[in-house]
């Protein structure tokens, strides 16, 4: 699905976000991404979802080189990739239902999009998605009246509506409590496994990564420093990496039986 060869990204202000990244993601893989703040995780996501162009190196998405992606082809590719950003990814003044239905924009015509703003189309899809994240009752509220964690779940609902082949989640559980975080990660994994989707999730919680993902990649200061099964990464190396990370930095303490609430992958009221 994705092939990166020597990919670097230097922003116009001179900041080097990524350096010589070599990465290959096959379709249907489930990968966790870990790295300290400022390591370049968000930049990597923005490149994988066709928002940013690499400064050097080649990025091939679905067999097409990114420099040859324009216009309709680019739009259709973006439609197949769903991104959950860390923050500020919803339009504040719109109602929740419009933000969630925006997941359809990739295949809606402009006329349908306009009509939906006046009279929501395919509202059932939005209701189903919101129910999966436990926010069905907030559907008619204005998005900026919700808390940060609720807004993050609305963003996840939007991706559910979009139903893409690839899900890129940039710290989707950063504003959620531990129980909710685990539920959301399980939900995303559930979706990916059932729909044969490619999933890349960036996490601050090392224990979630170690428990649920078969493959782990680690970014540090714009470089890829580890790519492989999470268990093979020594606890000493992890400690060194996350000396500043709050919360569960100790990998040994991660194993515990998930509660029945989290196990179902849905939110019980």
């Amino acid at each position, binding site marked *: 699905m994705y092939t990166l060869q020597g990919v670097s990204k230097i922003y116009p202000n001179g900041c080097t976000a990524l350096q010589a990244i070599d990465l290959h993601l096959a379709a249907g893989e489930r990968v966790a991404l870990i790295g300290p703040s400022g390591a370049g995780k968000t930049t990597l996501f923005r490149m994988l979802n066709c928002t940013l162009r690499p400064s050097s190196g080649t990025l091939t998405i679905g067999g097409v080189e990114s420099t040859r992606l324009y216009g309709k082809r680019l739009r259709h590719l*973006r439609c197949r990739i769903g991104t959950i950003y860390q923050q500020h990814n919803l339009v504040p003044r719109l109602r929740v239902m419009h933000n969630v239905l925006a997941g359809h924009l990739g295949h809606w015509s402009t006329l349908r999009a306009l009509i939906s703003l006046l009279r929501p189309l395919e509202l059932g899809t939005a209701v189903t998605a919101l129910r999966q994240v436990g926010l069905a009752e907030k559907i008619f509220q204005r998005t900026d009246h919700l808390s940060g964690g609720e807004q993050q779940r609305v963003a996840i609902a939007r991706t559910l509506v979009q139903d893409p082949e690839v899900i890129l989640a940039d710290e989707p559980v950063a504003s959620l409590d531990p129980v909710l975080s685990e539920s959301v990660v399980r939900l995303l994994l559930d979706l990916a496994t059932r729909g044969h989707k490619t999933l890349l999730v960036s996490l601050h919680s090392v224990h979630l990564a170690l428990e649920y993902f078969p493959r782990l990649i680690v970014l540090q200061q714009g470089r890829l420093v580890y790519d492989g099964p999470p268990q093979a990464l020594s606890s000493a190396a992890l400690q060194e990496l996350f000396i500043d990370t709050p919360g569960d930095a100790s990998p040994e303490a991660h194993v515990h039986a998930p509660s029945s609430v989290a196990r179902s992958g849905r939110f019980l009221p």
Partner: protein
Amino acid sequence: MPLPPSPAVAASYPEWQSSRTGRFLALLFLFAVVASWRLAEVRPLALVQAEALHNLFAFASGMFPPAHSAEFLKTVARPVMQTIQMALLGTLLAALLGIPLALLATNSLSFAGPLHDMARRSPLAWVLTRLPYTCARLLLNLLRSIPELVWALLFVRALGLGAAPGVLALAVSYGGMLGKVYADILEAVPSAPLEALQSTGASRLQLVLYGWLPQVWPNMLAYTLYRWECALRAAALMGFVGAGGIGQQIELSMRMFEYHEAVSLIAIIFALSALMEWLGDILRRSLV
């Protein structure tokens, strides 16, 4: 940040260096104010000299009591209605003209910012994205720079006397003003939600509908309502050049030294202005 606490701090943090530009500009502004004062020969004390006071008093005493005879009010009713209609129609047409021009004149829609990192890098693409923007900005500038009275004169020459040239004059000059402010409001929209929408595969027009418009329409509406109020006063003046409204009546009254009639008309404009401000407030509160 105006002044660094010490030279050592200024040397170690580059941010203090950039504030030198700010300080220089502030000094330049101060100098410009003083120079303008001297150049324009502003002498407020001239107002309180004997001759000036006498003239002012003669002017003011001629105004009261304001004309309020039924005959007079019947004569001015139609021009007053015409003024209100000119202001409304003029502002509406100005908004219709301003919106498309503003969309073209927003750089973050065409080429600036993170939304366009994947765009083509060829020189042709560079020109094609910047040309409409530059033309739109230049046009908006042109429409704004020519005062509405001059536009009115132009249209009166082309279309003859009446209210139509006044409406067109308002539409054109206010279209420039509205367009420029709309474009500035559109450019100030934070790009993060737009980037997220774009990543779902939304087209540019869909981005405008879902990303830009919901975030800017209250500001745009508020400014348009303010311009509507200004349009009323401008429409009142259009009559001075024969473009309809009560301006003609005001000019006539002033020329015949019938100041009490003039002050009645001005009082009517004031009342209308206050009414519109009140209406605008209600509209704003109910829609936002």
